[in-house]
């Protein structure tokens, strides 16, 4: 007998006396969200900052200069720019090498880069979370993992109040990365330290469009 048959057989035997599951649909009386639509954007900014991300709110017109300013402040010389990133985003950037990922960069090239600029798929206000789905302007997962600095653009239209709201806007067949602040550990006497293995700095540009 295969182990598959063994395990499934054990499960069926274990449940032989279990009462039939009630046909009634599962009680989902929990809230779909815990905040008003008006408060969604301010709450996202507040919660991102609470988890030590650097956050700026900008208009669409200000985005190119905000990106250039952020990279300059950070002292970047080589920055990864995923496929599908709008050219306008980097229009004001000068004196910085922009690395595309086609053909794919090696891990050593990624490790040698100062940072990555990406967009995002969805953001969640209540938890201060940004979700990347490897779509346009986000690239594969390693791009936002290996370099030490992540500059992330979030459009107000993609900001949802809650986890239940956000899940419905995500495609589970894509690889997803949910980011709530920079990498952090609390393993040493429960002191929070940012940046263990992922990026040590997360900077977010929230675009009110």
């Amino acid at each position, binding site marked *: 007998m295969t*182990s598959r048959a*063994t395990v499934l057989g*054990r499960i069926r035997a274990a449940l032989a006396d279990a009462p039939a599951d009630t046909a009634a649909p599962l009680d989902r009386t*929990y809230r779909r969200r815990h905040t008003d639509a008006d408060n969604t954007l301010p709450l996202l900014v507040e*919660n991102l900052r609470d988890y030590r991300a650097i956050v700026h709110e900008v208009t669409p017109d200000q985005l190119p200069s905000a990106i250039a300013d952020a990279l300059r402040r950070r002292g970047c010389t080589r920055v990864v720019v995923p496929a599908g990133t709008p050219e306008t985003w980097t229009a004001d950037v000068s004196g910085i090498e922009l690395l595309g990922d086609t053909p794919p960069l090696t891990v050593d090239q990624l490790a040698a880069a100062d940072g990555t600029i990406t967009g995002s798929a969805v953001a969640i206000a209540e938890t201060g979370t940004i979700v990347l789905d490897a779509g346009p302007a986000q690239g594969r997962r390693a791009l936002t*993992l290996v370099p030490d600095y992540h500059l992330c653009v979030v459009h107000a239209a993609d900001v949802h109040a809650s*986890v239940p709201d956000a899940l419905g806007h995500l495609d589970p067949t894509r690889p997803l*990365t*949910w980011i709530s602040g920079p*990498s952090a550990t609390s393993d040493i006497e429960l002191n929070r330290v940012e940046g263990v293995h992922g990026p040590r700095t997360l900077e977010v540009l929230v675009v009110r469009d």
Partner: protein
Amino acid sequence: MTGTFLGMPPFPEAAHDAVNNAQLRHNLRKATHTIRGKRAAVVDELDDWPQLRAAGKAIKDHTLRHLDRYLIQVEEAVTAAGGHVHWAADADEANRIVTDLVRATGERDVVKVKSMATQEIGLNEALADAGIRAYETDLAELIVQLGDDRPSHILVPAIHRNRSEIREIFLREMAEWGEPAPADLTDEPRVLAEAARRHLRERFLSAKVAVSGANFMVAETGTLVVVESEGNGRMCLTLPETLISVVGIEKVVPTWADLEVFLQLLPRSSTGERMNPYTSTWTGVTPGDGPQDFHLVLLDNGRTHVLADEVGRQTLRCIRCSACLNVCPVYERAGGHAYGSVYPGPIGAILTPQLRGTASALDASLPYASSLCGACYDVCPVAIDIPEVLVHLREQVTEQPGHRAERAAMKAAGWVFADPSRLSRVQRLAGHTRRLIPKRLPGPGAAWTDTRNIPEPPAQSFRDWWAQERGSDGSPRRDDA
């Protein structure tokens, strides 16, 4: 479960040493109280917490009731998405599957994401026997591994270590495993974390094979979910060519939408955060992004035994948040090692004896490692009635051989209580001989009196007092009239 803890003394003995270790008690108290406070604050932010908790319980119960169906669904979805699914009836089989998969890659090193399931089966030891070195990459697991130590908490395995101990371990051991610690290493948490970052960086960038567990797997889509903080999980799940995930069969949830419940319950209950810094989800393989060879090992290893017990099966709802550890007065004083298992605290006290059975003295002692205060039940995000299961397991333990004295005593007590005149005679006898009753019982009874005082019998029983005061007809005696 793993042989790591074989030969451990029963809980009271192991706990005895721990409670006398002032440093350990200080570390534990500080840590558990800190997380407890953070958890309470973020749970209070959600006024629908009771409804979320009820939904979490209901989803898990429903899934367990149809576990066969949902596991087959996971298998189909993962396979359709380009992954491979393996079934492991026990620890040995799971270890053999993983070892063979690693061997097939030709690699001798694997990086690991913190995983309770692989600790449970003793995977690192099995790989070592096959000449394969497994590197733990979670900071706390790294501290435990370098210190040749055992984990003492589900979420914060090195909770028993303070910063100066960690510094010593890093200085002493890191060079043996790779990039050495810098000579000027201080005991600042930031500096220690930086040393760990450097120590593991090369390892991550060159690793070809990774082993992980999963917090959830979604039947509907075949999606696996790993919840973490440091980014070591993302490194292992993304950079290697081959990914092997060992996942307990109870981790399945039916639909993608069900994650909306658990991704609210888990981070708030475990680290006391609104959301953990990183959550990764993946479905099979994605061309051009992440490992191109993905294996899911579905692990039974005693879980179907737990499922077969009507009272005990609720244990399989556990999402390993560890909230129960942080509120437990027994865990806070005894520490995690006393439980002799990778699952310590209240959940360990019910999960371990169900997974392993209660044949050993250690496992038989675990259902008693509790004051039954119920704090664990109150905080459990999936409402596992841990005290109910503890009492149920105690009943099972007393039914097995080796409790003759206790059973004889209970039988005698039953005979006495069955007849009021017998009871009065015994009470009178006890009252008259009260000066002769020792403080400490001899023989097997000593185990009882070592931790409890024998109540002194009253000089006169209530029945005798009542008869004396009111007479046999029950009317008050008016002696003063």
